[in-house]
């Protein structure tokens, strides 16, 4: 059953680290700027997503709060963590299979040698932020995410230098803002 196969691929590790390159194309297929960076996940709910190019941005969550730090905007915003933890990518990267199963129909698209491709389609349209998600695994390690959002934009994220269960220092998931920037503690969702 595809869900079980996906579940086994997404479980078996608590921490995950990877570099990424992200390409975005709009509904007319025009390619926007690609961005590069790296991310790290410590299940169940800590993650850090650092974009380096074309502009720096840090998204850091200790599970309780999410910090969004924009050096260019000289601004850091803190929001309650539970606002964005139910997006498909967060559920996937955190391996929350039960939640994924509740929201998405999982199908096995392709299986060839060491490569497996799954397709996730939302069970109720309109509510999900993504109209389609595809996941590509190579040698049982997540290598590519393809995300089609409801307005026709496609985001393709290619992973490299992935590491399962790397050592991750706790400080990685905490953020203390530099003193010369605007810090906004945002209680609302």
């Amino acid at each position, binding site marked *: 059953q595809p869900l079980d196969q996906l579940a086994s691929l997404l479980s078996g590790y608590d921490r995950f680290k990877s570099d990424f390159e*992200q390409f*975005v194309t*709009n509904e007319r297929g025009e390619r*926007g*700027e690609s*961005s590069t960076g790296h*991310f790290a996940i410590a299940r169940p709910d800590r993650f850090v*997503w650092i*974009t380096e190019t*074309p*502009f720096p*941005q840090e*998204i850091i969550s200790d599970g309780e709060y999410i910090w*969004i730090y*924009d050096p*260019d*905007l000289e*601004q850091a*915003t803190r929001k309650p963590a539970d606002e*964005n933890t139910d*997006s498909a*990518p967060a559920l996937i990267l955190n391996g929350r299979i039960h939640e994924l199963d509740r929201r998405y129909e999982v199908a096995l698209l392709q299986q060839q040698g060491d490569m497996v491709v799954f397709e996730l389609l939302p069970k109720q*349209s*309109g*509510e*999900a*932020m*993504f109209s389609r998600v595809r996941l590509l695994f190579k040698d049982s390690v997540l290598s590519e*995410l393809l*995300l089609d*959002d*409801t*307005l*026709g*934009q496609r*985001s393709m*994220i290619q992973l490299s230098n992935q590491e399962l269960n790397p050592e991750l220092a706790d400080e990685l998931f905490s953020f203390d803002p530099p003193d010369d920037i605007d810090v*906004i503690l*945002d*209680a*609302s969702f």
Partner: protein
Amino acid sequence: CSSTPRLPPPDTDEQQFIYRMQNWSMDGRISITQTDRTDTARVSWDQQQADYRIDLTAGPFNQTVAIMTGRPGRVEIQVAGEDDRYVARSPEALMQALLGWNLPVSHAVWWIRGIPDPTRPHQVVTNETSFRFQQQGWDVDILRYQEVTPGNRLPSRLRMVHNGLTVNLVIGRWDLNL
């Protein structure tokens, strides 16, 4: 490569350069701060003569938040998670209803290029470090410039304030289709 701001306001040659801009696009980062809430997004603005398309994306996966396409007298906004498209004569009311904030696109198309809308009155607010002016109830402060062609600069950082709303815009890339 943002150059230090020359003393404002842009001189007439620079204004001519901006008036002659017909087809251009910009990529930047925007933060929208209101009394109880702040959102940041990536913004790309594509202008072809009077037609514009503004894409707002956000989050680590660059999800589209909204797409606004329009020209004077008509705007269409699509919002993430909703299939239907909203149409109105001007963007402000529709943006406020759909996004919770608004920007007067027909004036901001000039502001983000560093000058007041030439078809409306404005007051310059004199200070040394930036070019600041008030127009249509907005306080616009051009904080940093970048040179786009020899002798011509466009903003790389500006702030637009209206009542309790502060919009900070950092512009990474200008594409002038010269």
